[in-house]
């Protein structure tokens, strides 16, 4: 997704070619079509950014000021909303809850998925393809279709309203996608790697942990980024399997916050920004991993 790759392969017409080669790629004639292109892209980008920027803008404004002057105004800047939103929204607690769910979910998902992927990608079993379908399809079912039996099951075994219920479901549900991506990646690793180790008498566990896994750092980093975002963003499973409000992770707590910030939209904005911060960190700092994770599976090799 880097600009260097895209510029290396652009150049639509033969007429463009000399310009590209000459290193003066920027000296393209300003045609009406290009102006329209830039105008359309700028408009769309701004429209897409706007809702987030609007929340950001109003989160720094005093409620009294906006109540008096309306939201379409400028001024009344303050930082108070953040402090109040943090307090009233009980975000400290909710972020801890999220952490308790996200960390084990992602780690265990990647661990289990990498084992399955290793076996499916590096060894030939009769059931290889069937297993891959078994895992991948599980990821595609609508969550609500599993709700009733799972709900009853967790209630019966005493896991209802515990973090484990949410964590276990995340693991089972997310494993399909991770297995698929990892097994595709592992298939691209040269066979000679493990074969040499095999001849040297290395056990399968060693082949997995010391040879294949270290080579899988890129997809693992991408998947970890993606999974953290998804599990963080999950709303449904926590709503379904937790009943104590104070146990909710941040995203699921949103529904309750709405009531608390009902009238004060500046507070609502600040709350939204607080909830968005971790994913925005992913967006800005780990963009490369996020994008490659999303497209890793979707692209050949």
């Amino acid at each position, binding site marked *: 997704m880097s*600009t260097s790759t*895209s*510029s290396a392969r652009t150049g*639509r017409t*033969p007429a463009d070619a000399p310009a590209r080669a000459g290193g003066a790629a920027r000296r393209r004639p300003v045609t009406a079509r290009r102006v329209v*292109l830039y105008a*359309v*892209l700028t408009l769309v*980008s701004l429209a*897409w*950014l706007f809702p*987030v920027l*609007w*929340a950001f803008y109003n989160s720094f404004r005093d409620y009294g000021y906006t109540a008096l002057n309306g*939201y379409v105004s400028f001024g009344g800047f303050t930082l108070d909303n953040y402090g109040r939103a943090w307090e009233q929204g009980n975000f400290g607690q909710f972020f801890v809850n999220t952490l308790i769910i996200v960390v084990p979910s992602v780690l265990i998902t990647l661990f*289990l998925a990498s084992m399955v992927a290793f076996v*499916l990608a590096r*060894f*030939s079993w009769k059931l*290889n*393809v069937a297993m*891959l379908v*078994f*895992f991948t399809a*599980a*990821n*595609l079912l*609508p*969550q609500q*279709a*599993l*709700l009733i*039996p*799972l709900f009853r099951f967790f209630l019966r075994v005493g896991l209802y309203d515990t973090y484990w219920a949410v964590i276990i*479901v995340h*693991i*089972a*549900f997310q494993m399909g996608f991770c*297995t698929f991506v990892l097994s595709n990646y592992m298939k691209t690793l040269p066979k000679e790697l493990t074969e040499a180790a095999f001849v040297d008498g290395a056990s*399968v566990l060693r082949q997995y942990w010391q040879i294949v896994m270290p080579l899988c750092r890129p997809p693992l980093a991408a998947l970890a980024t*993606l999974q953290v975002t998804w599990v963080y963003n999950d*709303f*449904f499973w926590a709503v*379904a399997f937790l009943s104590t409000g104070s146990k909710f992770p941040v995203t699921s707590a*949103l529904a309750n916050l709405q009531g608390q910030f009902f009238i004060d*939209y500046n507070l609502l904005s600040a*709350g*939204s920004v607080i*909830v968005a911060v971790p*994913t*925005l960190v992913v967006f800005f700092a780990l*963009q490369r991993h*996020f*994008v490659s994770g*999303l*497209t890793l599976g*979707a*692209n*050949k*090799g």
Partner: protein
Amino acid sequence: MTATPIAPPPARAVGGAAPRRRKRLQLLTTRDRLVLTVMVAVPALLVLCIVWLPALGTVLLSFTGWNGIGGLDRITFIGLENYENVTTNYPPFWIAIRNNVLWLAVFFLVATPLGMFLAVLLDRDLKGSWFYRSSIYLPVVLSLALAGFIWQLQYSRDQGLLNAMLGLDGSDRVDWYGDPSVNIWAVLVAASWRHVGYIMLLYLAGLKSVDLALKEAAAMDGASESRTFFSVVFPTLAPINVVVLVITVIESLRAFDLVWVVNKGRNGLEVLSALVTANIIGEASLVGFGSAIATVLLLISLVFIVPYLGSILREERR
């Protein structure tokens, strides 16, 4: 988006090496074979118990009159009665079907083509393309629930920007999330806002893998840019198209978070997934009844999942 991205089959065929590998498997020690079995069996058991058996359980429960009280021995089979009730005695069901279809239609006819169009525009050497790309895909990292929250700032009747911009006052003001005649559209705008970026990312990745020579050859033959895209580029994107199709369908069936945050899926925002949840978690606890709706949801998604998996199978066998 809890999870969706699904991958098309890998291009590489494992083919030729199969006989040698099978021999290798026989060479493994008993201990190694045991280890390999455990490595697959434990995760498989988990997925079986947490995903497949519950899905099956939902289908079975949909034929029963269980209300969730008492043990499993209190379950009585009542045939298709739940389905009859759902389709004839339960108005929200058809509203939900209509809304889900609408959701699918808007995603398919507006959001997905728009995402694809933006990807095509951005797949070239542009100044500031990082900015364009990032702004459009920013919503993808936010949760659907948060998207609902953020859009509330536009849609609110009293404090929202939309009413202010439209110059609506007093009783003319529209409660965009609350008014059942418009709220589904308001929600669809928020959902599409996220979906477009997602689709754009997928197509951008797909377009990268299209052979440049193809496009150049078409351009040299004098094909216009749109002609080049539809006749030359688009057909080579087949694997991505399949992924996008599946993602679009699944995302529209999972349209849960957004409506639940807004009003728990009532009053104009009925969707199948929210109806299931309301019937189970809600005070009524109509297990059999909710299961019937869940089964309908499951069947609709299987209609799309099965052919997709079939294509994976074909590719793998090759």
